[in-house]
């Protein structure tokens, strides 16, 4: 097979049925950013979870902070896939699209599958709104939507009628129309309105009439479904709840996973967490999440720039804390010098890169996995360090704890890659039993007798973590090359070779302690191995599961550890004719692997559109190789 990337169209252009998987349903809410779309989404998610559905959600909000109302660039959307255990993405194509204004229809229609149900607020499709969205004619009336099942409902008027009697103004009544739409969708999926009604009551505790107006709209939407002859698409009614492992669950976004994972790393190590960051989209949300935990024992520091964020975190680690810095693409470039220092000084440090589409400002809210080369190689001098990638919201929690354990055990900086998709996507997450989480050992029992700052543990090659304030262990660290052992400044040629080798050997020790690589889905050997890393996991797993169920010899292997790579990869690669490396860049991991495993036939499945892979795209590409 030729080593050719398979070029893909933008996922938004696909009008195909959502692959062979049946059962789960995909709903997309879209409206103006002032329409409370994200609130709708989170309420629908909560209700779906309580109904026992597995789900994955993804918000899609405008980059502009306050885009003019009614314009296409002010559209906010929220997509959710619900159904059984197999829901691992937010869905390729949409079964039900709710469009609250013309701009929302214009920007989201491409996602709706042919024959899909379109619910539109007819009242919003007046002259002004149509003009703002750039429609010459009303699409609800000109026949252009004939390929879909259109339900154009006077949502604004019906909302007004339901809400006005609750004692609110006309304007306040109209803003409740998102809840009218939600009520209708609840009816469609036989979901309970009570949690949303309860939320409204507490949210508007000081304005009970607003709560009542929204609840009335919610009920009215639900009743509308009941009393009209608007039969829901039959297969939506058949969407079956999943049967997850018993336990307590919550909704978790990738940002939540990072925030809670870092808090857990602190609790498990007994080290005070110092999260130092400079605001940048989409990583800022980690800073916001941790800043709320100031009273619980988390220190956050909004630094003056990305460099100060990284170096302050290094300072916190030098003084004995758990130093962490987080950023996105351009900020990662600025931290490169500090990573060299942390590598040279051999201090624990966690650097989180929530990747976004680049280069430069690029598309800050869109997903890309194009910082891999930067993470693996982007430092001056030879500065090898571990690079881990989180595969989803729940995996963010585990990955960041493992990063902290590695950083502290081996006295090294660790890069954790997330991305704009994982950051904002949400999934149900089973709460771990905190009592049984393994602790992170911190060795501060250092004998002052014969202490040398660079005398290493023979097993891990870690140097002792002596921190200021400890008696008899005063020492000087620095970026200048240090003498192996004593840590004194050294320009000795042989010493530099030895230290360079030791820094590299540390990664070998880390590799030896990692679990070996494993094919997680599909067949253990055969035609094609689909290899991925990071947020592509859901789409890859779903596609490979479907293909394997059809009898194809295809497997899926997902890498968390990108540096060092786990043991056993060569043996696994040898069991397949071809390895397809799927990633949201132009082939960075594939190129890296091809250099390391020249005997393996790698093929790239790449996409750089700012959008995640769809299952259909992976399915089609793998099928091409399997046939």
């Amino acid at each position, binding site marked *: 097979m030729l080593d050719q990337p398979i070029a893909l169209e933008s996922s938004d252009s696909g009008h195909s049925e959502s692959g062979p998987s049946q059962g789960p349903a995909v709903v997309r809410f879209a409206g103006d950013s002032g329409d409370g779309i994200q609130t709708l989404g989170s309420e629908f998610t909560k209700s779906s979870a309580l109904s026992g559905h597995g789900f994955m959600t993804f918000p899609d909000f405008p980059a502009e902070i306050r885009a003019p109302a009614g314009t296409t660039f002010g559209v906010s959307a929220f997509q959710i896939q619900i159904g059984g255990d197999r829901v691992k993405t937010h869905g390729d194509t949409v079964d039900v699209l709710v469009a609250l204004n013309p701009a929302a229809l214009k920007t989201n229609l491409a996602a709706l599958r042919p024959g899909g149900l379109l619910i539109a607020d007819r009242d919003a499709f007046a002259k002004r709104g149509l003009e703002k969205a750039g429609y010459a004619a009303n699409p609800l009336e000109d026949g252009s939507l004939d390929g879909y099942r259109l339900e154009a409902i006077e949502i604004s008027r019906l909302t007004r009628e339901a809400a006005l009697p609750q004692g609110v103004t006309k304007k306040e009544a109209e803003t409740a129309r998102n809840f009218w739409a939600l009520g209708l969708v609840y009816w469609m999926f036989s979901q309970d309105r009570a949690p949303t009604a309860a939320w409204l009551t507490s949210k508007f505790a000081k304005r009970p009439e607003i709560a009542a107006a929204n609840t009335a709209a919610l009920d009215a939407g639900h009743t509308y479904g009941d009393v009209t002859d608007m039969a829901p698409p039959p297969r939506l009614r058949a969407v079956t709840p999943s049967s997850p492992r018993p336990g307590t669950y919550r909704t978790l976004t990738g940002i939540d996973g990072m925030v809670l994972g870092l808090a857990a790393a602190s609790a498990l190590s007994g080290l005070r967490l110092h999260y130092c960051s400079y605001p940048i989209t989409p990583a800022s949300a980690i800073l916001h999440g941790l800043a709320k935990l100031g009273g619980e024992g988390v220190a956050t*520091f909004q630094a003056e720039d990305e460099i100060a964020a990284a170096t302050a975190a290094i*300072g916190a680690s030098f003084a004995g804390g758990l130093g962490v810095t987080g950023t996105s693409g351009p900020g990662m470039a600025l931290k490169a010098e500090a990573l060299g220092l942390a590598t040279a000084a051999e201090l624990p440090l966690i650097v989180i890169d929530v990747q976004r589409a680049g280069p430069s400002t690029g598309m800050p809210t869109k997903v890309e996995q194009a910082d891999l080369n930067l993470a693996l190689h982007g430092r001056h001098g030879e500065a090898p360090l571990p690079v881990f990638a989180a595969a989803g919201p729940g995996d963010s929690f585990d990955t960041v704890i493992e990063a902290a354990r590695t950083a502290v055990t081996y006295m090294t900086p660790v890069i954790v890659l997330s991305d704009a998709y994982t950051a904002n996507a949400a999934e149900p997450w089973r709460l771990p039993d905190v009592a049984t989480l393994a602790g992170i050992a911190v060795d501060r029992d250092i004998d002052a007798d014969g202490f040398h700052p660079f005398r290493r543990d023979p097993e891990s090659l870690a140097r002792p973590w002596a921190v200021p304030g400890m008696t008899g262990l005063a020492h000087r660290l*620095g970026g200048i090359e240090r003498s192996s052992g004593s840590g004194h400044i050294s320009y000795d040629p042989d010493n530099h070779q030895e230290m360079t080798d030791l820094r590299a050997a540390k990664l070998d020790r880390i590799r030896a302690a990692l679990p070996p690589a494993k094919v997680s889905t599909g067949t253990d050997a055969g035609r094609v191995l689909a290899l991925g890393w990071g947020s592509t996991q859901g789409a890859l797993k779903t596609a490979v599961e479907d293909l394997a169920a059809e009898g194809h010899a295809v497997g899926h292997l997902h890498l968390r550890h990108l540096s060092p790579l786990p043991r056993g990869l060569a043996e696994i690669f040898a069991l397949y004719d071809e390895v397809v490396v799927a990633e949201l860049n132009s082939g960075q991991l594939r190129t890296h692997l091809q250099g390391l495993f020249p005997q393996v036939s790698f093929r790239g499945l790449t996409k750089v559109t700012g959008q995640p892979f769809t299952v259909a795209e992976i399915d089609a590409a793998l099928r091409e190789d399997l046939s």
Partner: protein
Amino acid sequence: MNVMNPDLAAPATDAGPQLTARDFTTDQEVRWCPGCGDYAILKAVRGVLAEAGRRPDDVVFISGIGCAARFPYYLASYGFHTIHGRAPAVATGVKMANPDLDVWVVGGDGDFLSIGGNHLMHALRRNVDLNLIMPNNAVYGLTKGQYSPASATGMRSPSSPGGSVEAPVNAALLALGAGARFIARSADTLQDHLPGVLKAAQAHRGASFVEILQNCVVFNDGAFEAVRDKGLTADRTLRLEHGQPMIFGKDRDKGIAIDWQTGTARVVPVGDGGPVYDVTVHDQTNLALATILARMDAPDLPLALGVLYHAPADDFTAQRADAPGRVIDRATLAGLLAAGKTWTVGEAAAGTQT
């Protein structure tokens, strides 16, 4: 020892034997050019550390890059020689992690005013409890003599063969603008003055900024001769003392009078030659006065040395709402994980809301 200041009272010292400069001296050979002003600064720093009485184990020196950045290697405390310009940011992290440490940051005019200007500004405005000392030799020494942001306009150097066209930074004025609450100035060879300034800086809780005019014998020799030379300094500098009239000169025959209307200073004769009531009394808490003093320079006015401004306020770690000693425990973590909406799936997979 010339104690200039009423609030220079010695800070609380750790119990234990009296420390000496030797206790803060490493076995590392000091490697500056012979005659470099940094030797004298190092000597003064060691003496002040001994006098301040903090255990060497509780003292930390952080530096960036440059000749002055070698300080940590020569002090038997904890030390961290970091990267160019970033020392104030590293030190801020150290202080966050352990507010009890006595943290010093040493950076030259390149480190503090150029590549690390941003970090200096923010450490000062945040009032992080750091002793920031800046040996200012008005040149890049380590990289072999290029002009620095503190170099005089017209300075010829390898990177400015026709003479620098840039105006120099006034470090004290910059620090005032950044909101620093302790600003002082001295010079390397003024061993009857520098230790007192350093001691006051160490005692100040919050960011203390000390500019130390320092001679680079190799690349900018004599740049501060008027300040450092025993014969000249008395007439060319003004040694500030809080609460005292601002008098200077070998014969103590000149004073500084401030015209508050125009915000300017002028030299007035004192003693036999003139009335003493013209002379302004130094008030180190007066921001307006500090601004005027920071700008005084040759040829018309003496350079102000000593504590220009000292207005204590809560420092960064004291202002923060987070309890520095606190660490999340497992019980707290369990609470965080379960915060917000949760639901329970039993053996029968029935969802219940909690």
